[in-house]
């Protein structure tokens, strides 16, 4: 191997002026942000925060080129919000943004939960956590439902060991990996209260709001479009009513509930078509979800607005 030259030889003379637009085009950050705007419905506060972070990172990059003093940034984040609000999806985009700006080297996301980090017996946790950390190096470590790591009711719980290792790596190897913690708002709040070390090491707290009815409808339309399905006009009206009823039920999981509802509607549509074997089907027939496919849902059952069946995913 040819010996690598000392870095000082390779560094070009510091630039004194930078064309911001050109710089943005060069790293392709504008595309990612536009994609984020286009493909993710709603989530305005999230998009604003991501834009702000991207701006900070871009300026930091330019400062580096100008040989100005750059403190190494803390990029660890926490995403809080109700289920199905797009935390994982945004984490993937975030990894892409960080990678393009050169703040993580590979840009892959390692998605873990408590089970992947915490062991079953004494001495099992440290190697397990270390394994995951090594896999995540150069990318983003996404810890879903992070509050499960900390179980205050059991003082001999091994979660604490994983937390300590995480904190140490988050502090000492900031340039090697970015940790994103995700979970429901109130429980994350409690988690941070009992682990102040985490709060101070996480620089960006982003809250994901619930979707409005209109946003849920457009999410449904996008999902259907991706699956080569569509609503008939009457089905769309029925679906708006469906959403309204479903939201009032417990265990409503935003976009995830929408996806599940659509899957069930596809099932009903297939059954409806299957019942009439003598028909010749056109492309339109196979693509369209009808009003009856929506209205067959248990939510529309007359018995007390379906409220009686809370377990119903409807």
């Amino acid at each position, binding site marked *: *191997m040819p010996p*690598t030259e000392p870095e000082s030889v390779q560094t070009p003379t510091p630039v004194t002026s930078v064309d911001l637009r050109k710089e943005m085009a060069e790293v392709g950050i504008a595309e990612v942000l536009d994609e984020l705007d286009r493909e993710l419905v709603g989530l305005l506060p999230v998009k604003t925060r991501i834009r702000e972070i991207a701006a900070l990172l871009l300026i930091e990059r330019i400062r580096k080129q100008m040989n100005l003093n750059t403190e190494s940034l803390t990029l660890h984040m926490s995403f809080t919000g109700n289920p199905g609000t797009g935390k994982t999806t945004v984490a993937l985009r975030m990894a892409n943004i960080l990678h393009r700006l050169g703040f993580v*080297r590979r840009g892959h996301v390692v998605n873990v939960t408590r089970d992947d980090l915490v062991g079953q017996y004494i001495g099992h946790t440290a190697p397990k956590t270390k394994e995951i950390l*090594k896999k995540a*190096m*150069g*990318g983003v470590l996404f810890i879903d439902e992070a509050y499960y790591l900390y179980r205050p009711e059991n003082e001999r719980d091994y979660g604490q060991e994983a937390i300590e290792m995480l904190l140490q790596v988050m502090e000492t*190897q900031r340039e*090697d990996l970015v940790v994103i913690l995700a979970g429901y708002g109130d429980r994350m709040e409690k988690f941070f209260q009992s682990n102040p070390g985490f709060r101070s090491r996480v620089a960006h707290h982003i809250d994901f709001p619930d979707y409005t009815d209109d946003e849920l409808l457009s999410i449904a339309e996008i999902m259907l479009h991706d699956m080569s399905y569509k609503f008939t006009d009457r089905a769309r009206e029925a679906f708006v009513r469906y959403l309204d009823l479903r939201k009032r039920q417990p265990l409503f999981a935003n976009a995830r509930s929408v996806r599940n509802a659509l899957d069930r509607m596809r099932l009903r549509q297939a059954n409806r078509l299957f019942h009439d074997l003598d028909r010749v089907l056109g492309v339109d027939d196979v693509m369209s979800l009808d009003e009856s496919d929506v209205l067959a849902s248990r939510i529309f059952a007359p018995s007390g607005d379906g409220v009686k069946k809370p377990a119903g995913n409807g």
Partner: protein
Amino acid sequence: MMTNHGNRITQGQFSFLPDLTDAQITAQIEYALKNNFAVSVEYTDDPHPRNTYWEMFGMPMFDLKDAAGIMMEINNCRKTFPHHYIRVTAFNSVRGVESPAMSYIVNRPKNEPGFMLQRTETRGRQIQYTTRAYVTDKPAGERH
């Protein structure tokens, strides 16, 4: 030995070069990862050339994307065994190859006393030669 001044043992790749810097080791690991080799860290305090199987420091590392994780493990090993030989091995698991594709030393003891050439006279005044590392006079763990 003529080309090996200073009694440094020369096993594996790059062993006639000056010790690799951390940046160079990282670059070599990145090459291994690019080729989908499984990298592992091994150590020993017996420098004999026929000592093929060194102790493994942790499991071989599969599914890694970046060299930083392996560097972390190397530094851990250096901290635990500062006076041992430590090498990085990259295993190529492609069917038909299934053997180490790279192997190089990343840590060596400060003092390497070298080897003794032992001559044994056997039948018909025939001479048998064997090498023996001076350090192996001492028990394992107290050698360097």
